[in-house]
């Protein structure tokens, strides 16, 4: 099958959605001839015109606010926030408006809008352009939050998000944009709320999100050469969360490592940890749940410091090795009598 980069896959999904559904339109800063902050909307203004690919002033709160109003009244806006950090400026509209309107109106209004936004570090853009705040939104009832890691998922989930009748926030990762994968032509969807076993294995489950999926897969590959069999589970959507697939995997391997780029404290990894700890699978664990995540620090600019701030492939590998080989407490946790 033909291969596309993640960025091309996003572009293609937008292109198809614009082509297939008159209600779909795009809004965002510099999404016209500039192609958006990272090039995801390249060529679309040319093809669909400035009415449907609307370059906006620098007004995040207003952009999302307008999308809320438009989506309540029959349109399907897809917003690009140039950097996910600026979701903080749009927070009122997302959290207090978009997420609540369906509920508060007792179902009279729907808010079928999509916000796509690139997150994460690795580009040296510093603390105000490198955060991973996805957990902030995953906390809010009324919002759906997606974090695709591959080109295939990016396209399929974007189509699913556009078809969804709720506000959906898609966290794309800048470092994923150039990564290639096989991507089918034409519209297809990846269901929102379905995790994906990105690699199956027996010895340990790694649940990772965003770019950490890619890093976990690399670590797994390296460990495979040493005879270690790692299962990598990608939740793909933070909410709704496919708890079943995650728990099934952990039940099978009896060990679990959770990896996110986001700062660990109060992160999505904390939520995953709770989900596992609160389930029956807990009693079958051979050792405590472990987490690996961003250091508790604003992302620095200097390259060497930046790379220290978030998990690297080697760290994931080392952590897994440590869990498997250096842990002397090899018994299952005992059920209380």
């Amino acid at each position, binding site marked *: 099958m033909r291969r596309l980069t993640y960025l091309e896959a996003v572009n293609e999904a937008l292109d198809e959605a614009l082509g297939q559904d008159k209600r779909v339109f795009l809004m965002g800063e510099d999404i*016209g001839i500039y192609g958006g902050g990272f090039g995801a909307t390249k060529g679309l203004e040319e093809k669909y015109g400035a009415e449907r690919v609307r370059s906006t002033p620098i007004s995040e709160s207003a952009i999302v606010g307008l999308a809320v109003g438009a989506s309540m009244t029959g349109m399907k806006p897809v917003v690009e926030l140039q950097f996910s950090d600026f979701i903080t400026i749009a927070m009122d509209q997302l959290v207090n408006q978009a997420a609540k309107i369906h509920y508060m109106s007792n179902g009279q209004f729907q808010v079928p809008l999509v916000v796509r936004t690139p997150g994460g570090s690795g580009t*040296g853009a510093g603390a105000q352009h490198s955060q991973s705040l996805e957990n902030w939104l995953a906390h809010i009832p009324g919002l759906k939050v997606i974090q695709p890691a591959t080109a295939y998922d990016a396209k399929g989930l974007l189509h699913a998000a556009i078809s969804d009748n709720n506000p959906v926030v898609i966290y794309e990762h800048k470092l994923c944009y150039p990564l290639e994968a096989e991507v089918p032509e034409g519209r297809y969807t990846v269901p929102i709320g379905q995790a994906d076993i990105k690699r199956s294995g027996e010895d340990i489950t790694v649940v990772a999100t965003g770019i950490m999926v890619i890093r976990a897969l690399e670590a797994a590959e390296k460990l495979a050469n040493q005879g270690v069999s790692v299962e990598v589970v990608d939740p793909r959507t933070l909410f709704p969360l496919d708890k079943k697939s995650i728990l099934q995997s952990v039940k099978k391997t009896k060990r679990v490592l959770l990896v996110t780029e986001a700062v660990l404290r109060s992160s999505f990894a904390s939520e995953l940890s709770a989900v596992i700890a609160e389930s029956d699978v807990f009693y079958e664990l051979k050792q405590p749940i472990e987490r690996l995540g961003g250091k508790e620090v604003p992302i620095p600019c200097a390259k060497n*410091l930046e790379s220290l701030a978030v998990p690297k492939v080697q760290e994931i590998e080392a952590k897994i090795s440590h869990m498997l080989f250096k842990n002397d407490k090899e018994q299952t946790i005992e059920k209380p009598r």
Partner: protein
Amino acid sequence: MKNKTIEKMEQHPNHFKKLLRKMWEIRIFEETLEQLYAKNKIHGTFHLCIGQEAAAVGSIACLSQEDWIASTHRNHGHSLAKGTSMRAMFAEILGKSTGINGGKGGSMHISDAKNHHLGSNGVVGGNFPIAAGAALSMKMQNKKQVVFCFAGEGATNEGSFHEAMNLASIWQLPITFFIENNQYGMSSAFKKMTRLDSIAQRGSSYGVESFSIDGNDLMSVEQLSKRLVQRMRHGEGPFLVEAKTYRYRGHSKSDSCLYRSKEEEGRQQAYDPIRRVEANFIESKIMNKMDIFEEKQIIREKIWQLVQEVEGDSLPSDQELLANIYAK
């Protein structure tokens, strides 16, 4: 008859030499960054103010070290004009431990407490309320210091601009919102994003006295800024200034400027703020062509030496990652 600019320059040649030198330094600093970027030495992004030097230099020349500024992603001119060390800025942008912010901030987040530079902001519009807060603080402490808040015209479409203007106005704060209208916010033309002839028109909704000037004319920038600083010191303010200028380079390091024509660029760059002062100097015989050439050459060599020195500086140590997250 001689024009007023020339007369003024003849009266204060050393003052204007100082300002011109600052503009040269800023431009050569940024040209050097471009070269370093081409050599793959810069991690992260930067935004050049080439073409806008008169706005930064003319306005900040009217401030004392004690007065405050707040800037944006496009801050190199403001930072250098306010007195931030060029060496420490190079080091910052090259991610060295000797950077003005220890390498943690990078180009977009230069701040310098010693020189009362509140910081450059990576969040467009993020600096308006902060700067207004500093002005409030000066007023509440009965201090005479004033605040200049720099931003681009695009930033005035953020809610924060409007909220900060209104608050500064009702509380009569000693702040000048100094908007460099360089015609583009990234790829977005001013005319397409704002249905006004001038950003100065925005002041009237908030009862803020507003001005629109040629931001590429060092003399106009300086004269207006001087007047406003004086009035702010006497309890007046806030003010809004639109300094019309032009961004020569792309928005940031990776921008091929597809949204504007080469012809427009050529036309706009005919009003180069630096070449205008150089021409004035030649006409008033403060400097001749050769002097100018040589002075620039000296600056260029010094800056290149500085870079070589900075390149030898150490990287921040690993321990630095977690240092200074919380104040002690």
